[in-house]
């Protein structure tokens, strides 16, 4: 509470200060980070996708990336402690009033769209590349919308397909049951793991009919959950997309609603210290699952599970390795993160301060969010550039009848940019840039958390030491993933 009040005070203080000076400060901070991110780019001469990537001196890039993150950590350590805290101070914006009915209408339209997509799943084209249901869920929602939330703020509050209908049928009713407090957001963690298992290990998650069954069942269960346990609780603690998207929205520079503001990416996530350990694990599972998604395609992973990477036998042959790998990957990440935090806490307070570990673990976990987003962008960028073309074609011909509505679908889908050294190089640089930028933001966020956890400059720096090592190692891991040959 004390921290919260301090923050409110700072926002007020900032609102009354010189706006121009603060803007200059934010722009300068952006510029420093941008230069830090772009410097190793100068060394990336022959980057390219897959085969072309293997021709590059990737060891040098990985070293340069790790050096960048290390330099950003050193920079943060050198500047006055409060400098980073000031970076994350938001600027209030003029309040914009939007009637609640508008949100209801948008959500109702979203429900209609969702049901139309479900209909398409059952009755539309069988080809998942021509059916708008899998294209919408796996490309527009799972890949694109995550980024939109992180850039533009909480759009999901309006666009989710439940709240409008809920308000119409049940807004005034008191929920019949209450979710136990002890459950925190653990249901959402379990659902996130199940969702990733479906995407990674299921035999045909793209099959329109199969996906329609799963999506409709999930929609119904969620709506029933909202009716029985109340929309607010269910969406905040169980519904996995709402929990996920809201976390991503907290990375956005923008906040809308009653107290609109703009600030450095991540400022909203730092506004209040995270205290819910289940949320902390949720953040880590986001990164763990995303990382395993990349890892499970590499030659290295395939060799570990005894699969010839040049002769991938198909998903059906690796359902259990993928399932166990995803679970193990997340457990390992949580353990490594806990160790990193523990090391920092031990350095800052000595062994006797173990009771600080839990709160530190939970509070520091928000700094994982930008990395999870960076990996998300890097991992999905190539497939997004292909899939979005299919989305366009399917919008022009949603029923598979050879239509070209809105003038869409006339051209052929192309993957030429993945087979061309020049464009692949740009793509790889963008992917690596996303990974690096996310780590730099993460370093800044971790520092901000440390300032509020520890007293005194020395303790602030010591308590993030373990995380600093983890950030550097994870940068190396992330760039190695991008540079590794893949067999899936």
């Amino acid at each position: 509470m004390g921290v919260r009040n301090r923050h409110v005070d700072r926002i007020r203080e900032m609102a009354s200060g010189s706006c121009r000076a603060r803007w200059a400060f934010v722009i300068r901070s952006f510029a420093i980070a941008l230069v830090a991110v772009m410097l190793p780019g100068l060394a990336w001469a022959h980057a390219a996708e897959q085969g072309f990537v293997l021709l590059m001196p990737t060891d040098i890039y990985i070293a340069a990336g790790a050096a960048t993150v290390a330099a950003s950590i050193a920079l943060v350590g050198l500047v006055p402690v409060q400098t980073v805290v000031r970076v994350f101070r938001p600027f209030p914006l003029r309040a914009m009033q939007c009637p609640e009915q508008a949100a209801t209408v948008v959500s109702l339209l979203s429900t209609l769209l969702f049901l139309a997509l479900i209909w398409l799943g059952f009755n539309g084209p069988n080809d998942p590349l021509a059916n708008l249901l899998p294209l919408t869920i796996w490309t527009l929602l799972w890949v694109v919308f995550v980024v939109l939330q992180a850039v533009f703020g909480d759009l999901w509050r309006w666009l989710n397909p439940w709240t409008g209908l809920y308000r119409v049928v049940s807004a005034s009713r008191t929920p019949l049951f209450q979710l136990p407090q002890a459950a925190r957001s653990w249901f959402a963690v379990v659902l996130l793991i199940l969702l990733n298992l479906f995407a990674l290990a299921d035999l045909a998650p793209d099959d329109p009919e199969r996906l329609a069954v799963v999506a409709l069942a999930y929609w119904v269960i969620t709506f029933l959950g909202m009716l029985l346990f109340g929309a607010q609780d269910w969406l905040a603690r169980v519904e996995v997309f709402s929990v996920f998207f809201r976390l991503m929205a907290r990375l956005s520079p923008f906040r809308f609603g009653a107290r609109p503001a703009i600030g450095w990416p991540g400022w909203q996530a730092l506004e209040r210290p995270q205290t819910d350990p289940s949320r902390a694990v949720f953040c880590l599972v986001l990164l763990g699952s995303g990382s395993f998604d990349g890892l499970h395609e590499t030659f290295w992973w395939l060799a570990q599970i005894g699969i010839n990477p040049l002769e991938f036998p198909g998903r059906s042959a690796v359902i259990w390795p993928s399932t166990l790998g995803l679970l193990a990957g997340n457990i390992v990440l949580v353990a490594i993160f806990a160790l990193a935090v523990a090391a920092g806490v031990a350095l800052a307070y000595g062994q006797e301060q173990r009771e600080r570990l839990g709160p530190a673990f939970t509070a520091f976990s928000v700094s994982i969010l930008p990395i999870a987003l960076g990996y998300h962008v890097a991992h999905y960028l190539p497939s997004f550039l292909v899939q979005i073309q299919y989305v366009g074609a399917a919008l022009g011909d949603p029923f598979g009848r050879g239509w070209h509505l809105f003038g869409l679908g006339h051209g052929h889908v192309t993957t030429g940019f993945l087979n061309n050294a020049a464009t692949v190089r740009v793509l790889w640089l963008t992917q690596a840039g996303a990974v690096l930028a996310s780590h730099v933001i993460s370093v800044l966020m971790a520092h901000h958390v440390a300032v509020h956890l520890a007293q005194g400059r020395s303790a602030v720096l010591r308590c993030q030491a373990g995380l600093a090592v983890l950030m550097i190692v994870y940068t190396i891991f992330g760039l190695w993933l991008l540079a590794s040959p893949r067999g899936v």
Partner: protein
Amino acid sequence: MTNIGKKTSLLTRRRALQGLGAGVGAMAATGVLPGLSRFAHAQSSAPIKIGFQMHATGIGAAYGRWYDRTTKAAVERINGMGGINGRPVEIVTEDDGTDPKRGAEVLEKFANQHGCDVAFGTLFSHVVIGSAPRAGELKLPYFVVSEGHHVASGMLNRYTLQPGITDVKSQVQSMAPFVAANLGKKVTMIFPDFAFGHDHRDFFTEAVTAQGGEVVAQIAIPPTETSFTRYFPNIPRDTDVIYHVMVGPAVLTFVKELGEFFGPSRPEIFGFIDSLEAVAINSPGLEFLEGTYFWEGNPRHAQADQSSHDKMYRAAVGVDDLGASVSDSKDVSTYAHMFGCWETLNIIKAGMEASGYQGPADRSKLIEAVEAMSDMPMSDDHPQGPKRFNGKTHQTFGVQYISKVTDGKLVVAHTASIDDGLYEDEVDYTTQSF
């Protein structure tokens, strides 16, 4: 009718056809819809449904995209010429995920859910091998375009046929005479150390020995390898020609390192284009390939003596003279393989017409009609070249192309004859009952 991949609820489709039938029939008869009048004389106006098992996702997706494009172009042409037995052809696309189990599931959907007449498509051998038994159980004719030897080896069944593309054994064997006679007698083979590489090793060693050549070294590379320089000292100094069949993302590294190892003086080099399908041959880093030779199932670059059939085929699929998409010159096609879809669909058409195919009850007649096929001359139906189908082994044989990289272009240096690729029958599927 190119109603590609639309779901087919039997009830709604029947209703729709009943409703549409009267109106469309009347319009067609009066010439209002001249395109549809082509189908007016068939006993049934219901479409022939061909289930297309597509690698839409999974490791085969790059091939699947071009197989899909070729398939759509072939069906458009067939329908433009009046369909099959006066009925329009409808492609029902399902994603096999490049997975054998999913492949079998998809065949079941074709037979039981979509009411398909036949199944068709798919390249990757493990999907074919995983699906074929189900095709046999469903009694669903399964026309594959996989170039694997599994069809002719006898491991599949009477319902599985490969009439539109040659198999690897034949391809490898037909390379040997040219290699031994023109590139050199002493061959060093470099191949990935698993079944695919072993097939090449065994088939080619036997074939080149029969031509008076000699394999002086067999260098097996572990599949997980991504750097190859340390293997090159094992290439004997007296090697005349290197035969390589590397696949996977490290192929470009292999080529680059081979170039660096040999410098300007190198032995002749022969490889299979499979490793560079969909990659422009003049990509940066591939300069070392200049002057080397490649097997090509179908010449990617239009040749000086290009046939009218190849010209027509390229235009129909939307591929330019360099084998790239007409809408993106960087989007290089899988030109060496995808003709198999085009030719297979034309064989299905010919088989259905020869057998008077009317519906699923005639499936065995269709298979017998295809089994009875033999020589197929080069034509618009067979733009890659002439074929000779072996009804006993369910495998087709055809000409093979060897191209030399000349000024960054693939120029055909030799066309291996059908006879070069023939081998003794290993099975007689016609003895199996339906």
